[in-house]
């Protein structure tokens, strides 16, 4: 048993406890948090390389065998998400160390609790454990969202808490309904039980599966359930908002995991239960979020709507449900998370350059560092809209390729390309307002040079830009990794065998799923 698999959960859990005790010693807190976050990047990089050969690492807690004890499972999908989380965390933390962590005592402790919840959610192979880690990351995120306090933050925070608590209630209803029908909470075991379920249980199993879809749609901010996101993300402190870029992707991860493993093509009475919903909802989310982006009054609200658009794009890839499209969705997920983080940090830098107006899109005096911020903004705009040559373009090309044999390919192409155009217009409008449409009247006040972006402020941005460039240059290996991950997801028998071992139920699970192979051929 590879004990490193549990390290991404235990390490943040222990350091978070120590960070709570360190209370007011900011220097020590910073050093410990940075050391742990750097350690997590190294561990997760190592785990991702270990998972590259297709082996599924299973860690049975307390060595209790699989359907009875809780297991952690590390496959390629989990490894991608873990690595992405730790990179975003490092960038957000480096930015927070520039001073915004000092406005509350427990920023660093909450930050590590958030990491623990995220890593746990990506690793767990147990449905109820998924709920627990969701709660851990949500509770930490409530604290982080309110970091710095103030009226607007409390207002948005209350909305955020209320909708997520309602989501948690639905999660419990869904998960226990599925437990009542299958008698298990282990995801691999549940996949076998659902596949073998009698037709009489179909209605309740499908109801449970769709309740779970609503829950994950709340977390991921899909169409009817995204209204909380722009308010919450745009009032959060910059490093917190940058960190939250991964939070919507937890919902996307859960959908990918649950609806390929448990309710995939081989699931018998509940086969592909979510698929009729995902594509239309994803496309509608993209359209409305792009409209929101066009109407945004500040850079942070713009970045929030672009978050929703990116989620929509990822769900288009999931909804198409071919290995090519799923692989594109995973590649785009990595790209968009990094890009959205970059935009939130950039919005803060621009805001600091503009005095009282902050990042609102109104006419004011010129920014003090137009060249630096202008180029960064241009880069961010190109990355988020998916303009060549950056990785967003490659991700979208892969997505469009994945869609080409689909019955509704025209809609997918139109919406994905149209939203890219309008995102570019939204970014161009914001950019020209920020950098060109300025008061040159010498009487208007200028900010003092203490507010300018210093070299140290640019380190986290450079890290994120480096990731985008690396995803572009090494797009081949990255795409091969996501393609292999997508293939694993389409053939869940491998995952189930790794967790439960060979069983007669698994044999029939493989046989009852000829559709998997057919679908596999369709996309490539």
């Amino acid at each position, binding site marked *: 048993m590879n004990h490193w698999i549990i390290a991404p959960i235990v390490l943040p859990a222990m350091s978070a406890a120590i960070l709570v005790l360190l209370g007011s010693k900011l220097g020590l807190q910073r050093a410990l948090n940075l050391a742990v976050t750097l350690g997590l990047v190294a561990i997760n990089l190592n785990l991702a390389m270990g998972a590259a050969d297709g082996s599924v690492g299973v860690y049975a807690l307390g060595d209790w065998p699989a359907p009875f004890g809780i297991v952690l499972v590390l496959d390629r999908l989990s490894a991608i998400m873990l690595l992405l989380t730790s990179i975003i965390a490092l960038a957000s933390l480096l930015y927070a160390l520039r001073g915004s962590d000092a406005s509350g005592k427990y920023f660093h402790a909450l930050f590590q609790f958030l990491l623990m919840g995220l890593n746990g959610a990506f690793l767990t192979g147990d449905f*109820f454990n998924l709920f*627990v880690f969701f709660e851990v990351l949500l*509770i930490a995120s409530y604290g982080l969202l309110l970091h710095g306090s103030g009226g*607007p933050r409390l*207002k948005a925070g*209350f909305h955020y808490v209320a909708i997520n*608590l*309602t989501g948690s209630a639905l999660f419990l209803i869904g998960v*226990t309904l599925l437990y*009542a029908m299958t008698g298990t909470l282990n995801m691999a075991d549940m996949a076998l039980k659902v596949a073998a379920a009698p037709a009489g249980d179909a209605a309740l199993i499908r109801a449970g599966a769709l309740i779970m879809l609503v829950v994950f749609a709340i977390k991921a901010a899909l169409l009817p359930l995204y209204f909380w996101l722009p308010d919450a993300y745009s009032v959060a402190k910059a490093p917190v908002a940058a960190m939250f870029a991964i939070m919507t992707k937890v919902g996307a991860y859960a959908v990918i995991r649950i609806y390929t493993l448990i309710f995939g093509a081989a699931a018998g009475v509940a086969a592909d239960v979510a698929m009729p919903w995902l594509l239309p909802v994803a496309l509608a989310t993209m359209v409305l979020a792009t409209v929101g982006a066009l109407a945004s009054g500040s850079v942070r609200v713009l970045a929030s709507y672009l978050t929703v658009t990116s989620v929509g794009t990822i769900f288009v890839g999931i909804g198409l449900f071919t290995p090519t499209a799923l692989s594109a969705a995973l590649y785009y997920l990595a790209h968009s998370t990094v890009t959205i983080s970059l935009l939130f940090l950039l919005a803060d830098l621009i805001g600091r350059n503009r005095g009282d107006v902050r990042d609102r899109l109104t006419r004011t005096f010129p920014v003090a560092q137009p060249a630096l911020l202008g180029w960064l903004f241009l880069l961010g705009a190109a990355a988020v809209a998916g303009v060549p040559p950056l990785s967003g373009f490659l991700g979208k090309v892969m997505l469009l390729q994945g869609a080409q044999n689909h019955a509704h390919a025209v809609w997918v192409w139109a919406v994905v390309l149209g939203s890219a155009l309008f995102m570019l217009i939204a970014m161009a409008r914001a950019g020209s307002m920020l950098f060109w449409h300025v008061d040159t009247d010498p009487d208007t006040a200028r900010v003092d040079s203490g507010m300018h972006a210093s070299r140290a402020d640019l380190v986290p941005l450079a890290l994120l830009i480096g990731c985008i460039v690396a995803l572009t240059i090494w797009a081949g290996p990255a795409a091969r990794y996501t393609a292999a991950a997508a293939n694993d997801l389409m053939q869940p028998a491998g995952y189930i065998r790794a967790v439960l071992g060979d069983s007669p139920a698994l044999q029939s699970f493989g046989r009852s799923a000829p559709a998997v192979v057919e679908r596999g051929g369709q996309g490539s």
Partner: protein
Amino acid sequence: MELLVASGIGVLVACGVYLLLRARTYPVVLGLTLLSYGVNLFIFVMGRMAPGRPPVIDPQASAYTDPLPQALVLTAIVIGFGMTAFSVVLALRARAETGSDHVDGSADTGVAR
């Protein structure tokens, strides 16, 4: 018995949802609480209704009830309790900062929207 428990859960959830949609923070917190009570009961009965049977091994028992939902409901109660406390503090803090217990910070913006 089934009808009683099912309608009990239904009434709790219905009241919870109604209160959740109110415009003041205190009813919203109460709504969340009622909703979590309804959900806790739901989890409990998902282990099937089995009166008078022990969940853990007992030499005298002829049959057992499912112990797992009882463990799950414990987790859900703990998390729900903690979150209720948190949302009460959050609502009080928002009342102090914005001077209103309206969920949108002030009743005026709520009407204007």
